[in-house]
């Protein structure tokens, strides 16, 4: 038993060290002066502020004290002076809560740190270490493995997928009153490959828009979601990305368009290209960017009188603060909504809804997640808007739950859905 414990700790040390990159090293060094300015920038603290262990600096310190023990000169000699501590099995188990449950990796602490300490980089290294030790949340691991197995069993899965799409296509034709409207599958040399999530709400509105724009497109056989990135497990994440990269190459498309999903987009657009030796022969964009282009270039027209309700936009952390899609959704909404009510703060300063970082996928964390979502619920309530537009499916799911939990009395929808309603 002791040997087993020792081996887990030894392995943990090695895995932690493998992830000691320059960013993690810098953020684990004496860069952080523990000034506490990040404390009330975090939605976990904003929600009640009582749990001292969940402030960004406190979460980072729990991991930093181990990194210090191994990498900081003074800490090696006088560990108590700097708070450095040895890695233990208990610590590794505690980190599961620190890095997975009590941090949604929203990066609000980073943009509010006067020094630029990248706490999510430390949390990422921690998540990744735990994942390599099989200490990551089982639900996230299972969802990532299911996505990978979909490619391995593609032949068995293809027919049911095509049948589902054909059924949705009929619905689309009825909605558009156009029997020629299509949801193309595996079309060679289409202009773009659209990668949705599971569920018609990420397929039908987008298909409606693409058909109206007379776009040359084809739908991906795979879902955009990448649960491997929540685990910070590059091997799993890459396998999930590979499916779409290989499909795009096989079909010879010019672009891959990722649906309204924050983590999927930031992974595919910004992180994943670094995992490949060769640059991809296609461009990557988000559906929001495509819709914005269609409206600006008048490829689609929207009825500005159609949407009567007041609307507020929730900036997904992954789309806005992590990917720079800040003005595009606003420009789209301006084309069709008269009463837009901004939350405060917003854009790259937005407050996380509490559902990011994989939290929304894990039912056992629902209570924590809903509590952490309180600042977002208050922001929404303060706008007195009737509709919340969320261009990220995880955010949308979380805000729908916040709506019930905090009795917000709002309708929650996606950007493509609202555009689809107003298309002329």
């Amino acid at each position, binding site marked *: 038993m002791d040997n087993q414990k020792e081996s887990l700790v030894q392995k943990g040390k090695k895995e932690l060290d493998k992830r*000691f*990159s*320059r*960013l*993690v*090293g*810098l953020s684990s*060094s*004496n*860069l*952080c*002066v*523990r000034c*506490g*300015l*990040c*404390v*009330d*920038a975090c939605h976990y603290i904003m929600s009640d502020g009582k749990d*001292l*262990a969940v*402030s960004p*600096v*406190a979460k980072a*310190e729990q991991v930093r004290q181990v990194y210090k023990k191994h990498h900081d*000169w*003074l800490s090696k000699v006088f560990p*108590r*002076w*700097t*708070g450095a501590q040895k890695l233990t099995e208990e610590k590794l188990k505690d980190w599961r809560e620190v890095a997975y449950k009590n941090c949604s990796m929203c990066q609000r602490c*980073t*943009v*509010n*740190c*006067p*020094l*630029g*300490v*990248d706490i999510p980089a430390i949390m990422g290294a921690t998540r990744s270490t735990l994942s390599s030790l099989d200490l990551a949340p089982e639900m996230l691991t299972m969802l990532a493995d299911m996505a990978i197995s979909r490619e391995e069993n593609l032949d068995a899965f293809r027919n049911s997928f095509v049948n589902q799409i054909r059924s949705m296509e009929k619905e689309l034709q009825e909605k558009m009153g156009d029997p020629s409207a299509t949801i193309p599958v595996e079309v060679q040399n289409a202009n773009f490959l659209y990668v949705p999530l599971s569920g018609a709400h990420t397929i039908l509105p987008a298909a409606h828009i693409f058909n109206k724009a007379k776009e040359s497109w084809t739908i991906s056989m795979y879902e955009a979601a990448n649960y491997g990135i929540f685990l910070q497990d590059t091997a799993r994440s890459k396998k999930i990305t590979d499916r779409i990269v290989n499909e795009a190459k096989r079909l010879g498309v010019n672009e891959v368009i990722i649906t309204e999903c924050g983590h999927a987009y930031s992974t595919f*657009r*910004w*992180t*994943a*290209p*670094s995992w490949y030796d060769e640059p991809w022969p296609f*461009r990557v964009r988000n559906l929001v960017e495509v819709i*914005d282009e269609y409206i*600006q*270039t008048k490829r689609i027209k929207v009825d500005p009188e159609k949407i009567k309700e007041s609307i507020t936009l929730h900036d997904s952390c992954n789309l*806005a*603060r*992590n990917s*720079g899609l*800040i*003005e*595009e959704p606003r*420009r789209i909404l301006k084309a069709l909504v008269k009463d837009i009510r901004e939350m405060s*703060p917003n854009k*790259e300063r937005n407050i996380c809804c509490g559902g990011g970082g994989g939290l929304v996928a894990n039912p056992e964390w629902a209570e924590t997640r809903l509590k952490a979502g309180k600042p977002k619920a208050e922001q929404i309530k303060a706008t007195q808007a009737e509709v919340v537009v969320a261009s990220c499916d995880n955010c949308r799911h979380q805000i729908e739950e916040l709506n019930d939990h905090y009795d917000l009395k709002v309708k929650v929808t996606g950007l493509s859905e609202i555009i689809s309603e107003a298309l002329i």
Partner: protein
Amino acid sequence: MISESLLHFVEFELQIIALTIFAILYALKIVQLVKLPMPREVAPASGNPAKGVAFSFSTLINPFSMDSTTKHLWRWMEFLIYHLGALSAILATFTLPFAPKMMAYPVRIVFAIFIGLGAIVGISKIIRRLANPHLRYVSVPDDYFSLIAVEIYFIAAAGCLVYFTDGWRFVFFLITALFLVYVPFSKISHYVFWFFARIYLGIRFGRRGILPKKRLQHG
């Protein structure tokens, strides 16, 4: 009584020895840092990394660029006063021995005022660290020691500049030398790492068109 030769040693030779140790330690720390792997983002940029870096550094002088400093404007004022105090004290360690003519009484008093204000802010920092439960929870002995050490350094510097006696000069330069050797080990090192952190953050935010915001096309 401090002999002239001892004062000269403390003001010149000892400072050079301490500065050399300081420089070697930081050089080693920086080498250690840059030897760590740094995954590069290869995705095509949608913004300008150079502008991102410029923006990243501008947060130093623009408290309204971050919610944290907008909300806690006094904390930003404290930062400014405290660091002006530190800058004045550091500058004095060079100007007193190397440009003594410049350090006439009125100039020394101006320096001392900046340092004194920094010392007052330092006391408020110590009180906050003790009083705020979030800060107390994460604080380690080095946090308290560093604040107290800077406080002693400020008092020695101000005392030296105001009274300008051999005794005060000896104390100030001796503390400076000790400080130079301790700083690379302590959290006071943040001012070196800060450059790297703001550059990396600026590159990422700039490339991705987050800050400053990218110019939209197709409009």
